[in-house]
């Protein structure tokens, strides 16, 4: 099973890599290959379309401002399930693409235990066990997977209420709301973490690369695997070199 997924995913990666390009400079590392980036932004586009069209139907005070984007209320209602279906299909590919790096490990358990320090931003660099994704990213990913499943199984009866009958549809509305809440809060945190909170992160999803110092700061274990070097030693060396440069600059 997992080997079939790997074969499919590697095939897709290879095809997209042949088409697209990732320029990796000397001080950089390849973080997200072309296929991952295309998937992520396709998912994001459909997510935002589904979010806006869903919000339009969700709340009366958003109804008037958002429905014109999609050609009126009836059209919004018509399109929303199709946007959502687009999101689900692409997100399935994204899940297959990330199944391996998103697997929960002991390192993630350790990461979650020190989430307070992470939020308070007390340590300059992450603990050396943090690999390609940290525990928070994995938690976000699996939360989105769970809420996407809830969205899908509650949304289908809402799409065809006559076929499924009222009790299922009634429960569907509530579940759809809960999934929306979970996904929306997660999404806002995700945008913040991917942009302002961690400079240098956004480009990993656009150009595909990160600076090496970004890698040893945020994902030391991945840095070790990708470069074969010691993240802590390289970090300390960089600190020394920088202070040395400072001294020579001032003298």
């Amino acid at each position, binding site marked *: 099973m997992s080997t079939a997924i790997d074969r499919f995913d590697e095939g897709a990666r290879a095809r997209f890599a042949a088409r697209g390009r990732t320029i990796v400079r000397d001080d950089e590392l390849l973080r997200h290959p072309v296929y991952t980036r295309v998937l992520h932004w396709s998912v994001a586009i459909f997510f935002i379309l589904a979010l806006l069209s869903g919000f339009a*139907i969700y709340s009366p005070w958003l109804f008037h401002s958002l429905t014109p984007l999609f050609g009126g209320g009836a059209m919004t209602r018509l399109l929303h399930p199709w946007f959502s279906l687009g999101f689900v299909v692409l997100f399935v590919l994204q899940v297959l693409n990330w199944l391996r790096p998103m697997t929960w490990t002991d390192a993630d358990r350790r990461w979650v235990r020190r989430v307070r320090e992470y939020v308070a931003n007390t340590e300059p660099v992450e603990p050396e066990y943090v690999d390609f994704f940290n525990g928070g990213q994995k938690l976000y990913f699996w939360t989105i997977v769970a809420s996407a499943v809830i969205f899908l199984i509650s949304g289908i009866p809402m799409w065809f209420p006559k076929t499924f009958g009222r009790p299922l549809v009634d429960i569907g509305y509530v579940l759809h709301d809960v999934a929306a809440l979970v996904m929306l809060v997660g999404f806002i945190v995700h945008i913040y973490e991917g942009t302002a909170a961690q400079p240098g992160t956004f480009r990993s999803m656009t150009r595909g690369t990160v600076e090496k110092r970004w890698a040893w700061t945020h994902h030391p274990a991945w840095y070790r695997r990708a470069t074969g070097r010691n993240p802590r030693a390289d970090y300390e060396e960089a600190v020394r070199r920088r202070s040395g440069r400072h001294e020579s600059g001032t003298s």
Partner: protein
Amino acid sequence: MPSGTLQIKAISAHSGSIPGAGVQREEEVCKYIDVTTCIGCKACEVACVEWNNMPFQETKFENTYQTMPATSWNYWNLIKFNEHQRDDGTLMWLMRKDQCMHCEDPGCLRACPADGAIVQYTNGIVDFQQENCIGCQYCVSGCPFDIPKFNSQTKKVYKCTLCSDRVGQGLEPACIKACPTGCLKFGTKTDMRAIADARARQLREQSGFASAGVYDPPSVNGTHVIYVLHDITKPELYGGLPANPRIPPTLTLWKGVAKPIALFLAMLAAPVAFFHYVMEGPKEPQP
């Protein structure tokens, strides 16, 4: 000029004031249906179909006097026909005119997410405005009587209007006009309720229907269509009239609890992220 008898009281999914509200005082209207004197002639069905310009349609004979299996998007008024065996073994025909009940607390209006797709007039009529309908069918789920019906061609939902177009001009609904026995009456809620109570008393005291009563369910704050039933304790016998019609509790859970919490938390997440940045700063790559 309209007679001014259709003053809007509530609008679905509407924020802000309701234009023209409270300009005129209006009597609440009511349709009175005496199930005990209905002869099942279906004149009201024909009148409804004719007045609302809906096509006549074929049906199947299924060993019943009922014309259609159920109401549909273009068949808003249906005499539900049931054969009922009394305790003493004798047979009884129960015929109930099924249509929108025009609830005082309409579940359809509460569920509707489209501004102005459902309005309630001060006279109690609940009316669908198809030009504002988005076809989501939330109203179907909100209705305790399973009345709104979806047309998959137009992608709109339809139901009995209580002939708001006629009532607005000072006329009675088409079904009332067609009724030959007088089992249908139309007037103010107070008057109809008084007639219904008197008729129920008569049934109890003079006709041997000890549990006759008026169906005006308080669980939806009363309805603007009321029934006189032979047996108020078993409304289900009359083609599934619910004894205690309720707007589904999931609707309250969804619109009353989940939605405000979701909006609050979502609106909170953005400022929390912003102030986290302001207070803790970004995690810069080191050094």
